[in-house]
């Protein structure tokens, strides 16, 4: 049940190898999807994948349109599409496939040393002799790792502040003291503690919980878990889509709070 994640240390930070591989793979999948959908584009009646991509653009434009006027919203449609597709595909990766590899021999190039096997492995008896084995979950959702979601949220929030300052430094400073100077402390807490915590934790929590229950169900016997597993997989697909929508929506809300004048 317990999965070990190979890591390496560089520049005083710890890097999780499966998460790095999966986040790169998610980007490649998005790139392939977008390339396929925009190949052989026509200005006439769209066919096949072009239909799909036009729907995605319309969908994100619709989200942006709720919070800002069409002209401002159009500027952030690209950001919205990128975030939506990346998070959507990331969320589904751990649902559709859940590959685990079990190591009994050290493989230092993958970060599995004898030390790791001794420390994290659990004893299993094969043909009369006992070996220690370590299970590594190589294929999983990158968004089930808090580092990825905190990274995404940090980029988005810094970008929102940057846009606010770029648009009008005076108004940006003023909005911290609106509607009254007493609100300053609430604004600071909201911007620097609550937003950077809630945005990533919501995404991470939902996807991580989904993966934990999938891993838990997969460990059970087929007769007992097959029906709950099918239901839970279906629900996880739904949760993954909703979370991608929520992250994109909140990103555009946070940006609109900084760039739209009427508040």
């Amino acid at each position, binding site marked *: 049940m317990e999965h070990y994640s190979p890591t390496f240390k560089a520049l005083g930070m710890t890097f999780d190898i499966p998460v790095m591989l999966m986040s790169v793979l998610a980007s490649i999948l998005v790139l392939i999807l977008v390339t396929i959908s925009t190949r052989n584009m026509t200005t006439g009646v769209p066919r096949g994948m072009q239909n799909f991509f036009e729907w995605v653009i319309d969908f994100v434009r619709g989200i942006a349109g709720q*919070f800002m006027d069409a002209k401002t919203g159009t500027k952030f449609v690209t950001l919205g599409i990128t975030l939506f597709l990346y998070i959507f595909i990331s969320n589904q990766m751990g649902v559709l496939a859940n590959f685990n590899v079990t190591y009994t021999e050290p493989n230092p190039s993958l970060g599995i040393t004898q030390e790791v096997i001794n420390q994290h492995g659990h004893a299993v008896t094969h043909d009369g002799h006992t070996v220690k084995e370590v299970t590594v979950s190589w294929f999983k959702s990158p968004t089930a790792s808090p580092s990825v979601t905190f990274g995404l949220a940090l980029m988005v929030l810094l970008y929102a502040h940057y846009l606010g300052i770029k648009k009008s430094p005076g108004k940006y400073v003023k909005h911290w003291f609106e509607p009254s100077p007493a609100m300053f402390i*609430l604004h600071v807490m909201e911007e620097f503690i609550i937003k950077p915590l809630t945005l990533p934790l919501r995404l991470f929590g939902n996807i991580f919980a989904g993966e934990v229950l999938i891993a838990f169900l997969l460990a059970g016997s087929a007769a007992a878990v097959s029906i709950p597993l099918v239901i839970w997989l279906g629900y996880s697909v739904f949760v993954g889509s*909703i979370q991608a929508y929520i992250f994109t929506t909140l990103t555009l809300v946070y940006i609109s709070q900084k760039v739209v004048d009427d508040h």
Partner: protein
Amino acid sequence: MKQDQNRPLRAFALVGTIGVEMATSVIFGFWAGSAIDRWLKTEPWFMLIGLLFGLALGVYGLYLLVKQFFGE
């Protein structure tokens, strides 16, 4: 028309947001208050102040958010 299509999704987004926003604010207030209490040995006063402050923060944060969602 587009607004109507998005309405159920917006409801999901709001429901998914409200709980987390409220919980994070209250837990943060409680944690910060308790930390000050441990530091100054004034239990339980700053914990209570932090809790109320967290509630206020949660409500205010949600007000800002809901204002954007129904910002007409």
